[in-house]
């Protein structure tokens, strides 16, 4: 058992730099991702506030807008050149540097080894490289806001030829930095994903069979497969876009034989799997939290797993639904419509299974459960509004309107972010050894829930009225002028929504020092991570635990001690030892 001996050597004291900065410990790397992505979440939110100011109060000086340089705002009034940067960078930061690393960077890193009973990732040093490349990519992207001419002006999707030609977009350096940052980020994502995949396949504790894995791990595993296959396509596309800018190639220049739609095909071939990268881990973690909060086994575990796999597979053949209006062959449009509608089925299965889990449960409304239930309630709205866009004739009207803006925010905010608020609270004790404040957590939840809906639900109505997205001044159009009160209302709600997030930030930061000391298993959960002290020590277990059952054995009849939970690692007299009780080797 050399691996066990190796753990002890890891307990030797390490310098501050090795322990917290250039750490190879998957938990520290997860925490690093957490802090950095929460920062980018804040940046993305600040950009959104400026967008909302302009839409709600076009032509009026923004409070505090006086500090912006002349190239962005004139006497506090935002300029159109700056507005399109805001729109583009809000999307870029939120998708690539907030939601994706929050879900995958933080929780794939933190949860996979802990939930599978591994000492660390398969390749700890590659894992560290994955964080630092992501950090570098974030810095490059952030820098692009401050170069002359500012950041990209072509949306986070960077449709060409607008993005490919500085004479069309008015941006040179911002675009170059965007491409470089995305290539570096793609590298980070591939390094991370190959680590997650290898760890899940090779580093499961004895007895942790495929169908005893928690759904969070299943979702993160499928997400990693999507990441490893999707990001390189975006990297390839971004490199070609970069070369069009710098080397004078003509990939996307229709005047010289290039093609404008080629970018869209490449981008969305990446982009649709990316959408599932942004929601699958949330679905997985919500499954864990709902089973815990309901004190019931997850309803239909196997169909949940197959639904995740089905979504992961179908996600590759639906990308054309972003391009119904692009001039793509209409027959192709029909087939993309059908595949898109079919992908609603596994999502429906998941929704009903979550409801089935709550049915006849004994629901404990701790903060993670509240957020998880809100996830289900909001994800349903986001999922159902997707049907409108999938139906091609309806898309003809609502494509590129606020209807799609409402849809994406119901999925990414109502879905992913609510799941993340829950997940952060749920695993906070195992990360930091303290609990987040429950009362403030609940206050934050309810205020967020209310203002979130007040902000994003009316956007459906804007979309129904034909309000285009990404326009600087809606009052330019007669048919949009009657909507201005609604725009104002949305903006005020959005400001309130942002303000409410400060409660979360304060709760998160203050609890690091002031939070109540966490017991080993505060939520009375079954996962392997709860067999460790809070916070989990370096190297996790001295000796990896053995797994005797699935992850959701709540309220099982015959559980000893009158408990309503039965951890995966607890051996009952009736349990048999798993056949292959080999201890996984530590590290690489």
């Amino acid at each position, binding site marked *: 058992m050399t691996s066990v001996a190796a753990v002890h050597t890891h307990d030797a004291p390490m310098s501050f730099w090795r322990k917290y900065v250039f750490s190879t410990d998957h938990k520290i790397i997860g925490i690093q991702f957490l802090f950095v992505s929460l920062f980018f979440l804040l940046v993305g939110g600040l950009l959104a506030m400026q967008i909302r100011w302009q839409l709600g109060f076009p032509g009026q000086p923004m409070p505090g807008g006086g500090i912006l340089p002349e190239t962005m705002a004139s006497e506090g009034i935002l300029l159109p050149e700056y507005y399109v940067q805001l729109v583009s960078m809000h999307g870029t930061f939120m998708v690539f540097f907030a939601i994706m690393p929050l879900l995958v960077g933080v929780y794939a890193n933190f949860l996979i080894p802990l939930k599978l009973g591994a000492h660390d990732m398969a390749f700890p040093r590659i894992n560290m490289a994955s964080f630092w490349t992501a950090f570098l990519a974030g810095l490059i992207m952030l820098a692009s806001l401050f170069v002359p001419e500012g950041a990209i002006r072509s949306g986070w999707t960077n449709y060409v030829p607008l993005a490919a030609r500085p004479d069309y977009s008015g941006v040179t350096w911002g675009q170059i930095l965007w491409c470089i940052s995305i290539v570096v980020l793609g590298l980070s994502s591939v390094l991370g994903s190959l680590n997650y995949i290898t760890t899940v396949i090779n580093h499961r504790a004895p007895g942790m069979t495929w169908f005893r894995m928690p759904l969070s791990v299943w979702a993160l595993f499928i997400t990693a497969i999507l990441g490893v296959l999707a990001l390189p396509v975006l990297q390839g596309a971004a490199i070609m876009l970069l*070369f069009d800018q710098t080397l004078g190639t003509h990939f996307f220049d229709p005047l*010289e034989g290039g093609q404008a739609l080629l970018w869209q095909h490449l981008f969305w071939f990446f982009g649709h799997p990316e959408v599932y990268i942004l929601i699958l881990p949330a679905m997985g973690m919500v499954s864990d939290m709902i089973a815990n909060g309901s004190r019931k086994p997850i309803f239909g575990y196997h169909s949940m797993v197959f639904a995740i796999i089905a979504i992961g597979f179908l996600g590759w053949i639906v990308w054309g639904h972003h391009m119904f209006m692009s001039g793509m062959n209409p027959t192709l449009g029909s087939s993309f419509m059908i595949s898109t509608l079919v992908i609603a089925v596994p999502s429906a299965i998941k929704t009903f299974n979550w409801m089935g889990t709550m049915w006849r449960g004994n629901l404990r409304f701790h903060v993670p459960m509240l957020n998880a239930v809100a996830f289900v309630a909001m994800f349903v709205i986001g999922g159902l509004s997707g049907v409108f866009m999938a139906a091609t004739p309806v898309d003809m009207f609502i494509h590129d309107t606020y209807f799609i803006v409402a849809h994406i925010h119901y999925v990414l905010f109502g879905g992913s972010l609510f799941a993340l608020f829950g997940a952060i609270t749920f695993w906070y004790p195992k990360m930091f050894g303290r609990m987040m404040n429950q009362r403030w957590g609940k206050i934050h939840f309810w205020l967020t829930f209310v203002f979130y809906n007040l902000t994003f639900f009316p956007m459906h109505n804007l979309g129904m009225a034909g309000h285009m997205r990404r326009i600087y001044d809606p009052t330019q159009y007669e048919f949009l002028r009657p909507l201005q009160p609604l725009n104002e209302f949305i903006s005020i709600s959005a400001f309130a929504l942002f303000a409410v997030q400060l409660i979360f930030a304060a709760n998160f930061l203050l609890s690091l020092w002031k939070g109540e000391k966490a017991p080993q298993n505060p939520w009375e959960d079954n996962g392997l991570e709860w067999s460790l002290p809070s916070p989990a020590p370096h190297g996790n277990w001295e000796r990896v635990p053995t797994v005797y059952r699935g992850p959701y054995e709540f309220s099982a009849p015959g559980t000893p001690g009158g408990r309503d939970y039965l951890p995966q690692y607890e051996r009952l007299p009736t349990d048999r030892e798993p056949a292959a009780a080999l201890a996984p080797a530590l590290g690489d």
Partner: protein
Amino acid sequence: MTHAHASTADLMRPPFPAEPGAGVYSNKLGMWVFLASDVMFFTALIGTYIILRFSTDLPWAQPGAVLNVPLTAFNTFLLICSSVSMVKAYAAIADGDRERLKFWVLMTILGGATFVGIQVYEYVKLVGHGFTPNGYREGSELATLAAAEPLKYGLQTAGIYGSTFFTMTGFHGFHVTCGVVCMTWVYFKALRGGYSQQDYRGVEVIGLYWHFVDLVWIILFTIVYLI
């Protein structure tokens, strides 16, 4: 922690503290996953080339009109040979013969380095001739030839021809360079007594990468130079 090594399949797998799971050790599995992602990267580049080339009705430069096919054919042969020497290196250490491992790894490094050298030479000649990532440089020898025979040189598609050619072969060359660097690392590790019949994971993993890069080149050579 002992393992039974009876079947021939097991002989393919070096004995070392094995992880449970897929029966493939982590380094090798990680390399396979990485190669899957690399397949997608090259798919984006090659797919772009195929779409741009075959969706246009305009003529494309004929094979051999611009590019030096015999030289590149030799280069292709060289890269295939280096794959063979890689297999030889792998077989050597599987037999526990570190001396032969060092020799064959060195041969592979030389093969790869020569390939990159020839590619750089070819680039220099092509650019000098007037073939650049944005097409046929104005006033160059190639531009004159193309103006005289626009069909043969695919004058109207020269822009995307240059774009796709340099991007695809350039990134392949970058991959070969990375391979040579890693292989050099393997060589020095072997010099200092690394690898044994019991554990030669590094050799096998770099070998996988090397064969992959070789395979990509055979595809590129076929679709870029020959058709």
